[in-house]
């Protein structure tokens, strides 16, 4: 009996999408688009502060009694807008009193550079029976800014230090982390850059984060269906994202550690691999032996060490699907003793849950971060093989 979920049987959980991106990337433009255009989506937007550009002349939000709710504005297209300056959770609570008025929440996380901090707020524990769930993390990237630096920069091996303010890439260190952690990347202002530069910017983004969906936009106009309702943290949807990762062939000499294979020994993107040296983000994809089973408890302990103690580098994001025996509490599906376990992690926060519906032949785990030690990670995973 899970006592904590029983509060309201008909409770529908609201998806929360987090929008990251540095100043100037176009977040305000995207928010205006959401709040002004008649796109048909009912979105409640929580901004850090009301910006004057939003032009808040819109009517105030009223509740069932006709009293105005302070600080929540209703826009003509049916969307809501409010400010988090007095506290994000508090504002969320206010909004949730009226959750029949909207279907999505978008949080504009300007002030919070670290995606982990935002995820901590919204990626709520199952045991909480919360009224919201983290649907996905978006990162808006300025193509123009990126490209004006790409042309001038030279390949170098210098990694920006963890915590460094900026690199010579037109992407600040914190922006790089946001890109690494995102589920959807929006490359904005593509109308302002030459085609070659656009391609290189896109390639670099894919380098940093191989699993994020990459969208391109002008004036931050993206189909809302592409950024809302992603269910990116849904364990049953994980399979699609993880299975889409390529199977790795043997590592190249002095391999780059990036997640694509070199079937003909040559790689165009490995030119872009030089960029790897400059932005410092790598991804490591671990693959299990065919048919191998991993013990979820061992995997948890191992990942706690990796993510909390940094034993294999700095991990910004991890995702995976692995085969293993069912966990004690869960009822295994009939007639099988092998189930899939889904792993999701942002920063230090991670979760492994049984994902019954998803199946995978070979376990896969993706790590995105800095200074990752592939061998250490591989050895760690191997030690999690289920004993018979």
């Amino acid at each position, binding site marked *: 009996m899970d*006592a*904590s979920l029983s*509060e309201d049987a008909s409770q529908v959980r609201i998806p929360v999408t987090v929008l990251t991106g540095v100043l100037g990337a176009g977040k305000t433009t995207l928010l205006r688009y959401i709040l002004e255009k008649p796109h048909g989506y009912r979105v409640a937007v929580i901004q850090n502060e009301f910006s004057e550009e939003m032009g808040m002349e819109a009517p105030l939000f009223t509740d069932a009694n006709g009293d105005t709710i302070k600080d929540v504005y209703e826009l003509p297209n049916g969307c809501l807008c409010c400010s988090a300056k007095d506290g994000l959770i508090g504002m969320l609570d206010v909004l949730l009193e009226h959750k029949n008025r909207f279907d999505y929440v978008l949080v504009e996380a300007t002030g919070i550079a670290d995606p982990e901090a935002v995820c901590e707020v919204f990626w709520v*524990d199952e*045991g*909480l029976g919360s009224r919201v769930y983290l649907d996905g993390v978006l990162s808006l990237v300025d193509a123009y800014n990126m490209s004006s630096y790409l042309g001038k920069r030279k390949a170098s091996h210098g990694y920006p230090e963890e915590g460094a303010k900026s690199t010579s890439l037109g992407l600040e260190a914190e922006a790089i982390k946001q890109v690494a952690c995102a589920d959807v990347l929006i490359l904005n202002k593509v109308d302002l850059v030459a085609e070659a530069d656009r391609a290189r910017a896109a390639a670099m983004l894919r380098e940093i984060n191989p699993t994020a969906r990459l969208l391109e936009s002008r004036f931050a106009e993206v189909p809302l269906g592409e950024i809302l309702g992603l269910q990116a943290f849904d364990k049953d949807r994980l399979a699609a994202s993880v299975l889409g990762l390529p199977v790795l062939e043997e590592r190249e000499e002095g391999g780059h550690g990036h997640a694509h294979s070199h079937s003909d020994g040559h790689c165009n993107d490995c030119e872009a691999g030089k960029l790897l040296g400059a932005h410092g983000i790598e991804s490591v994809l671990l693959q299990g032996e065919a048919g191998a089973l991993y013990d979820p408890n061992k995997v948890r302990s191992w990942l706690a060490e990796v993510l*909390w*103690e940094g034993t294999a580098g700095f991990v910004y994001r991890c995702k995976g699907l692995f085969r293993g025996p069912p966990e004690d509490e869960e009822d295994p599906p009939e007639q099988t003793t092998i189930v899939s376990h889904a792993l999701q992690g942002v920063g*230090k*926060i991670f979760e492994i849950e049984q994902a019954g519906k998803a199946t995978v032949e070979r376990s896969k785990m993706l790590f995105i971060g800095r200074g990752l030690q592939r061998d250490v990670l591989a050895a760690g995973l191997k030690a999690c093989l289920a004993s018979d």
Partner: protein
Amino acid sequence: MEEPDVLDAEKSEAVQKLKKPNGAAPVEAEASDDEDAEAAEATASKKKKKKKKKGNKEKDAAEEVNEPEAAPKPEDETAPPDGEDEEEDGADGAQEEGAAKKKKKRRGGGKKKVGTSGLDGIATYGVSDEDFAAWCQKSLEALMNDSQKMSEQELKRPPKEFWGYQFSGALRPAFVTKQLKMPEGILLPDYALQPDGSSLSERQGVREVPVLEGEELETMRMACKLGREVLDIAARFMRPGVTGDEIDRVVYQACVDRKIYPSPLNYFRFPKTVCVSANEVICHGIPDCRPIEEGDIVNLDVSIYYQGFHSDLNETFFIGECDEDSQRLVRTAYSSLLAASQLIRPGTFYRDLGNAINAEANKNNCAVVTTYCGHGVGKLFHGPPKVPHYRKNKAVGIMKPGHVFTVEPMINLGNNGGDRTWPDNWTAVTRDGKRSAQFEHTFLVTETGLEVLTARLGTDPSCMPAYNPAMFQR
């Protein structure tokens, strides 16, 4: 349950001399002879505390009327519970009598084990029941407030912010008196004087769980002992008819006497020195002028700040005879904390404590409150790690020697672990009005296991004692 002893004339004279300590001089009074003698016998290890009490006394060497120093030495606390404590408690005639009176009047709960002190009943710290009652009386009178002049009806009227409020249960808030201020000379935490009660040190935050060792750990141990002492005093004072407001004043005085700060006071504007949470109140109950009733269960949550360190502990008590559901509830809350404590050792994940707590709650048809968590405690009142009490949580961190944190499961009767906050912005109640109980300790992770820093006197601090309802019977 226990009637306060009538003041004799000599002592009432002393009462006149007591001044209200609101920003003025510390409380002082004439001591009676035997208290002086007991004070003189204080052991070396308690000198520090004595000095604190004598502290800023401008007048003569008049001893404060409060707990004289005859409590057992710290070393004795590690001894297995036996009759030792009763002896050390200054076994004068009054004390024995007091203890006997307590035994006779004990009701409800389990049987009292005769002779196994520390486990049953509340530590007396060498103060006879009479002297204790006298001290309480003096403290209350010294800290007399507006409630004295108000009629019963006025006291019962819920504060303005509650007009029109739909209560989930039977409990109603009563009049809340003005916030007390601590006298000069006591080390204040950074939020004490802030208008919004916020803590800069907490806001700046630390990401890593602090490791306490050496001198800092010793200071923390003392802070926990003092917290335990103050809780024991508040619990000893509590009985049917007493109000939260009075308990607050008793806690205030006990802290002034020890020159320590009651951590809840002004923490984010919390108005009082202690949380008093009855029946369906889950936590953060504001002490008010509602008399505590027979049949209530009441949680007292005490935190104190001593030489830069906070300690934090709470216990739920039966007031007179309580129904079976309440007995089951309190037992479950205790045993869920016990289950969690048994996992505390280096290498345990903080996230696993919630699994143990939740399992125990489910076993007894109770629910775990999810909104409030255990927390690191020490230099910060609330800091890392975060210790959720529910299963399958994503708490970050692995226990290491030197980590100090609380575990404080709040358990509700029934299957609803939800909570709701009263319009006073503090009191958390169950959504369905059913009762809630809680226990809390401050734990230290040692090389091999744990130390219960806020353990009751005379109990083995390397583990929590088995549940014994007599320990919580008032």
